[in-house]
């Protein structure tokens, strides 16, 4: 814990300002204990098992404040400086499943957990127990915090490549590394797509018709050589019967189809038909250059 930065001694970085600008009392809940700031080296001290999920992005620092309730219970306010709006979108988008809460640029709320993004910040407010009693305070605190985070920011440019028809926007994720892919959509126990911080990935779900869905993974590699190697690695591990075509009907009678184009690898998973998979592939809007 020696490397943990206590707010009072923290120098540099904008998250220190939140200690002053965010109220210490809200709806009967009061700040408890010292505000804390964790960086890339100390995040392990705060997140048990979740640190790698953040470190796979361009995470800079997180400001943490705990609140105690009037009776019992605790709220944890975390404000993550993700370095850019694109990265804030990324961490928000990888773990999304609850209804929109109308806070910040994009948000969701479900049983004691508020998550939202605003500009380069990603925020989570978590209740440790008695979630229903804490709900109003969580949402109010979220609104107050969102107002302190500056203007909204852009979404990742890679998302512009995704076909629009049928796209479930609230089920679209952006990330870089295999830990995020496997928490979002398990593909393989080993890193068969050779993902790392230099790769940009978009994973999107599509409503192909009223009943059927499909999934598209689009990966942008730093160069064509890495894309080609990753494509071959994927086919070898996942579609060994289709090394030449990159297309196979899997055991659930659905189709997986991988395509290589310049420095991009696109894979349609579990499409109900070969035609649907082809249609989705052909609708990917690759950059002209």
């Amino acid at each position: 814990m020696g490397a943990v930065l206590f707010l009072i001694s923290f120098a540099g970085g904008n998250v220190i300002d939140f200690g002053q600008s965010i109220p210490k009392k809200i709806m009967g809940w009061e700040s408890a204990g010292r505000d804390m700031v964790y960086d890339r080296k100390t995040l392990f001290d705060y997140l048990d098992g979740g640190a790698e999920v953040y470190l796979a992005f361009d995470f800079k620092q997180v400001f943490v404040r705990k609140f105690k309730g009037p009776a019992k219970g605790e709220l944890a306010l975390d404000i993550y400086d993700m370095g850019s709006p694109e990265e804030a979108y990324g961490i928000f988008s990888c773990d999304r499943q609850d209804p929109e809460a109308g806070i910040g640029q994009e948000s969701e709320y479900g049983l004691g957990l508020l998550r939202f993004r605003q500009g380069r910040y990603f925020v989570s407010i978590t209740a440790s127990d008695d979630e229903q009693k804490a709900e109003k305070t969580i949402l109010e605190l979220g609104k107050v915090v969102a107002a302190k985070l500056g203007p909204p920011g852009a979404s990742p440019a890679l998302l512009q490549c995704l076909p629009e028809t049928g796209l479930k926007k609230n089920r679209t994720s952006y990330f870089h590394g295999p830990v995020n892919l496997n928490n979002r959509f398990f593909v393989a126990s080993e890193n068969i797509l050779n993902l790392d911080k230099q790769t940009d990935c978009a994973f999107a779900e599509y409503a192909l018709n009223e009943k059927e869905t499909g999934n598209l993974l689009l990966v942008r590699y730093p160069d064509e050589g890495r894309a080609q190697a990753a494509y071959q690695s994927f086919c070898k591990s996942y579609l060994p019967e289709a090394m030449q075509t990159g297309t196979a009907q899997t055991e659930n009678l659905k189709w997986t189809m991988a395509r290589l184009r310049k420095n991009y690898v696109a894979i349609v998973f579990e499409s109900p038909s070969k035609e649907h998979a082809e249609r989705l592939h052909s609708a990917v809007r690759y950059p002209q250059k």
Partner: protein
Amino acid sequence: MRSVFTPPSDIPKNEVSMKQTLTRRDFIRGTTLAVLGTTVGFSQESAAPLKKSRVIVIRHPDALDENSQFNEKVIQQMLDEAVMKLLDQNDPVAAFRRLVKPEDIVGIKSNVWSYLPTPPEVEKAIKRRLLDAGVKEENIGIDDHTVRTNLIFVKSTALINTRPLRTHYLAGMSGCIKNYIMFDISQPAHHPDNCADLGSLFNLPQVKGKTRLNILCALTPQFHGRGPHNFSRRYVWNYKGLIVGQDPVAVDTIGLRLIMAKRRKELGPAQELPPVPKHIQIADTKYGLGTSDINKIELIKLGWSDGIMI
């Protein structure tokens, strides 16, 4: 005589390569468990003459009350019955005397994760039986984050390993194997490759050869994680069970099967597995810590059977 678990030497190592890639297609084929080194069907009545790792799953409908508060008396009863069955004893104190000697210095390695800690009622139940077995109170310690410097743990001659069962973003599952991560100076050092080498923790000098009992608390297990802290009460359920054994790999293997069964039911077959908990199999195949092969585990189920899932 003390009963210290030793991996059965007549069990051949799993033939599955440690680096064998498990893919989504293994889920689709329904062969996930086979690739993980386990088989789908239990065979408790198997005639195979192999010595098996015994694991007790014990459940009680009153382990938690209507307000989800732990029932200390019932939990003590569950622990007693589990340990008696595990060691073929008719008395809980006699059973614990098989695990520890009065002169032992015993560390109870607990878990203090704020959202889902080891219940104090479980810690008390263990401590009570250690005292009954003759261990001096001053020679019993309960700790998590400071085990490396806690004098009881530094001098310990025996360890009892207990923690709640839950999923984990990186390791896939947090069980008895992962619970020893605080014995190492660096926790992040164990994170590469989805925490594949957690089994090495059991070779640390402070730990090696000392573990007498593993108690995986499945009273309120967590089968899925959300948010930065990987916790949402939506994914915690009142299973009201304990998974008890001397082989930490076998105990975690049963815990994993429970998590997978719950995920299959609640989240669907496509999300049966959290990120692959490869460390469990590797603790078997690379570190020889125990067995992850379900055919080499003698699973004994005691008590309440509604919704047992495994």
